[in-house]
């Protein structure tokens, strides 16, 4: 399978998984964002919120990295700049969710 076809398939599969997770996250976030510290801690330390939030982050960053790299492909014409931008994007998309997931599992 061609690398672009793989990328397209991964984007579509991740978007399909992401849609119900976005529904769940947004409704949960709206219900807790202004609550007291311990109520928010309670939300993140209980299941299924913990696992759902972790999956949401992994899929959201995976999907975002794939789609933003497409934007780089369209608007960055210098190959070296594009390469650096893509590497920085992928590193960011791995580190941020990883740190957050480790964070909520230590709460």
């Amino acid at each position, binding site marked *: 399978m061609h690398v672009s076809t793989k990328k397209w398939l991964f984007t579509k599969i991740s978007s399909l998984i992401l849609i119900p997770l976005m529904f769940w996250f*947004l409704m949960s976030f709206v219900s807790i964002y*202004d609550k007291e510290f311990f109520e928010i801690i309670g939300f993140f330390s209980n299941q299924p919120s913990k696992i759902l939030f972790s999956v949401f982050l992994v899929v959201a960053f995976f999907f975002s990295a794939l789609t*933003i790299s497409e934007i780089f492909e369209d608007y960055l014409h210098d190959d070296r700049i594009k390469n650096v931008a893509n590497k920085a994007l992928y590193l960011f998309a791995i580190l941020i969710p990883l740190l957050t997931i480790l*964070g909520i599992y230590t709460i």
Partner: protein
Amino acid sequence: MFNEKYETLVYKLFMQNKNPLSPHLQIYKWQISSLLSITHRIVGVINFFAITLICLWTLTLLLGQNNYQTIQIFLNTIFGKFAVISLCWTFSFHILNEIRHLIWDAGYGFDLKISKITGIIALVGSFVLTILFYFIGRNFF
């Protein structure tokens, strides 16, 4: 002789990446399809930064109750509520337009009229979904 010179010139321009570009966004008349296409990209980038902020918000919980207070105060202000409602809209728009894209990928909805209708549904629906998300989340129903 002319062809050779012309080909050399074209090759040089190509190598310098100075070949003329096709007309871009500002040239074409705005239509629902172009409006939604560029908005989808912009909203996607905004959501990427929004999710990053949500990660940072989650990580501030590790700093303890006293340090979290500043964020809690901000989220309870009118600006905090505006940020949350804006997030509801960007997520809603992205969900609906992504569903529209998935329907296209399945091979449906390419007809010009249907494409316009689904575009309007995605745009208007995003505002309706924003209200629903907020009201359901706040237990208003």
